[in-house]
């Protein structure tokens, strides 16, 4: 939607009398000039700096979406402000020569203005809805948590699954394709599609990888999947964006997007280094249930009945096949 089909509010209100200045044309002219100047300024000067940046495909997508909304919003804001400003200046009672207002039926309603307003706002809203929906679906969920059964999935052949475990008050990351190792720092390879499987061990957290433009709530016993495709290397800030208790404000850590070869090296090395620890961890699963039989704080994977002694471990069948990050 470009600037000039965003109609200013209240356009062509009751026809001006012949000896009166043509107020509506003045307002439209001021609005058009301001919008035509400010819109490109915002798009080209502010737009490239709008968060979340361009580190992943959906980060740049979401940045573009934000800028499109901004380009639509600015003329709307200007239209109302110009109109209000014009009214305040022209028709303030302290200004000399302001004619007394004329009441009567034509001041009470104006069919063309009302229908025009409703049609314009409806078109704008439906346009925004279509734009948002198309961007959401083609953007593979735009980096938002899609729940355990994602419907907008990437077509990429290789997907690196990374499990994000939220607990009071930290995030840890497990890499099922690297022996289920668990790290306290998020390291992911460049130019790779990542599937974040976000879950929680206690309360609701929200995994917000700011530069990746990924946000997915971590719910207890739910595997919330969000996709992104990395485009650049760099640092990533991870913050919890859902209130999770007293140390919510301190629940953040940092991660990195590194080159593919660096990631391979790091992952192999870390897998070997942490192998002894990994054995002590609950076996990898998509979600974990607090152990109802013991009060020692142990966790069972979700495919193990916490009330039985069955020892069936491993990832739930039917999930997308995890591919080693190559």
């Amino acid at each position, binding site marked *: 939607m470009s600037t000039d089909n965003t109609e200013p509010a209240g356009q062509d209100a009751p026809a001006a009398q012949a000896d009166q200045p043509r107020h509506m044309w003045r307002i439209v002219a001021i609005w058009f000039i301001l919008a035509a100047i400010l819109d490109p300024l915002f798009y080209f000067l502010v737009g490239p700096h709008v968060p979340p940046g361009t580190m992943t495909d959906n980060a740049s997508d979401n940045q573009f979406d934000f800028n499109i909304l901004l380009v639509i919003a600015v003329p709307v804001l200007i239209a109302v402000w110009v109109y209000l400003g014009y009214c305040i200046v022209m028709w303030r009672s302290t200004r000399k020569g302001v004619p007394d207002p004329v009441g009567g039926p034509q001041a*009470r309603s104006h069919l063309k203005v*009302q229908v025009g307003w409703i049609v314009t706002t409806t078109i704008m809203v439906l346009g925004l809805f279509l734009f948002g929906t198309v961007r959401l679906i083609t953007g593979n969920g735009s980096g938002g948590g899609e729940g355990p059964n994602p419907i907008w999935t990437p077509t990429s052949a290789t997907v690196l699954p990374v499990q994000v475990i939220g607990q009071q008050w930290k995030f840890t990351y497990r890499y099922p394709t690297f022996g289920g190792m668990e790290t306290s720092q998020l390291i992911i390879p460049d130019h790779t599609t990542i599937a974040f499987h976000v879950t929680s061990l206690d309360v609701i957290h929200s995994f917000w990888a700011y530069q990746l433009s990924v946000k997915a709530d971590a719910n207890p016993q739910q595997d919330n999947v969000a996709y992104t495709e990395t485009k650049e290397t760099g640092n990533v800030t991870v913050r919890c964006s859902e*209130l999770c208790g007293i140390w919510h404000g301190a629940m953040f850590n940092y991660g990195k997007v590194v080159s593919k070869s660096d990631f391979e090296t790091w992952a192999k090395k870390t897998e070997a280094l942490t192998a002894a620890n990994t054995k002590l961890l609950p076996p990898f699963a998509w979600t974990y249930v607090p152990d109802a039989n013991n009060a020692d704080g142990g966790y069972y994977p979700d495919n193990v009945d916490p009330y039985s002694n069955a020892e069936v471990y491993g990832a739930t069948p039917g999930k997308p096949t995890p591919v080693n990050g190559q």
Partner: protein
Amino acid sequence: MTLAAERETEVVYPDPTPPVLGGFQGLPARPGWFSQHLGTAAILAVGGYLLGHWIGNVMTSGYDNVAASGINAVPVTAGLLGGVLGWLLGIGALNYPLAKMAGMEPRPDYESTSWTRYFRYTADHKVVGMQYVIGVLGFLFTGGLLAMAIRTELLSPTSHLFGPGTYISIVSEHGTVMMMMATSVIVGPLGNWLVPLMIGARRTAFPRVEAFSFWIFTAGYLVILSALFYGGFPTGWTGYAPLQTQAPQGMMSYLVGFAVIGVGMMAAGFNLAVTIINYRAPGMTWSRIPIFVWSILATCALLTLATPTLVAAGLFGILDHTAQTAFYVTEHGGSSFLWQNLFWFFGHPEVYIMALPGFGIVAELLPVFTRKPLFAYKVAAAGMIGVALLSFFVWQHHLFQSGINPDMRPLFMLTTELISIPTGFIFLVGMGTLYKAKIRFEVPMLFCLAVFFNFLIGGVTGVFLSDVPVNVTVHGSFFVLAHFHYTIMGGLIFAFFGGLYYWLPKMTGKTMNKKLGKIHFWLMFIFFNLTFFPMFLIGLLGQPRRVFEYAHNLQALNDFASVSSFVLGASFLVFVANFVWSIFIKPTPSPANPWDSLGLEWQTPTPVPYYNFARIPVVLNDPYHYGEENPPAIADLGDGILVAAGASSPASVAEDPRPPAE
């Protein structure tokens, strides 16, 4: 209905019978120190609390499950409920049912002009309205002080004034107190006070229910504040479930408090809705009722229909804590999504409970200060009803990233963006009314114009939030916080103060100081924007809500917002000073109709008599006939007094346009 037919259907009203208030015939008719008032309510509330607490302890002693659960929520819950019961008993809200149960004839209400009536249970909607004014201002200033504490803590990213537990309790308390206040901030004071006068009624439909709604509202205030004595609660005003389940005893204050306030919201809404539907004066057709009454009707529909969900959700939470049920405990078969859905199914209509009365005030005041009729009255009314209906279908936009089924997302994006169409009608109405007007910049008008400025920013950023891809970045951040402060504070609270400056001269008979009013307005308007606009940037730059530690590079913006917020807080002191000065210290009697309004509420004597109208008025036209050469009469107040534009106040004698009665 033709004018002639109207005259013929005119009803002769008998002398009104006083509403039966309750109380026992044996008690003194005109109570003094030893009858029921605020003091007895406080005493019985404390007694009820202690009794309830003791019963709760007796009930649970010997139950291993409770002992092992870490906290025993039963005595707290029983104590709080006992306290609320004692409060209502002490103020006299239960007199009527108790008298009936005892087989005694309840005592009728009595007229009183003593100042003590403001501390009693009374059936007079004007007294209840004034009680509400003080009540919601107390609520607002409590929440405001907590906000000052939050902004003080956020002056520094790393050095702390409070511990994390204290900080999160303050944040939660601020949010909950403000949300509870905001549900009633206009419906309570201005709705109760004005609606019967505006529609030409002598009282509300259920005067006892109306008084009950106020006193249970104050009980809810005490209950939610009691959380501070239990160490607070860490969930914010949203109370998300697994955190709620593990939270300490302060959580019970939140759950009981919201349930108690919820009952009050339903009572207030039900009473006013029935009043508007059934108690309109003859001739007060649906196309003639003031637009403020439309907004209150839409709000009351939401209050009665949405609030039961909150009360039920709170009850589940109370049961989870006390009876060890598992509604919200995932590992025992419950669901944390259940609370989220129930809460927001209430919570989103709640947002419009807060927006609609503000629109009503703005639309009501604009014609008075522009001397023009309200533009597109029918569109405005339709928009309010449209917002009320649509608001039940948008709640899942709070759960866009939560992991609910993703195919719902486009649908809720659509409904959320659709609701901006009827919401936008208020701009059509306002801008149409301002066109070729003659704007008088009185203090109430300044607040109305500020609502348009603020709510526009709030509304436009709401569209950003409703867009799912953009929502990924801004959800749960300070962007959201800035957005809803722009809509609720920038819209509702500004409209509320506009309404107060406009109607206080009627309600109190005293003139508010104009100079202080303007200082209040400009301080509040400028520093409101300086406080909350930077928060959009803070959110976009990555600061989540409700944190007590944040990135160092955001300190400058946070400090700017904090310092501005202190001035914003101080601006309310100007209002308090104005209120105390103009009404108590140096009262100046107000003219009968200081703004030259055609509204029916201005045509009554000041102070308004107990039964409002000596004779029920016959309404002939809507009250927006400004700027006409031969304005028609608005209403017939009896004895040949007609209300018409362009004449002196309060009611002018114009030529009766109707044929003489047979």
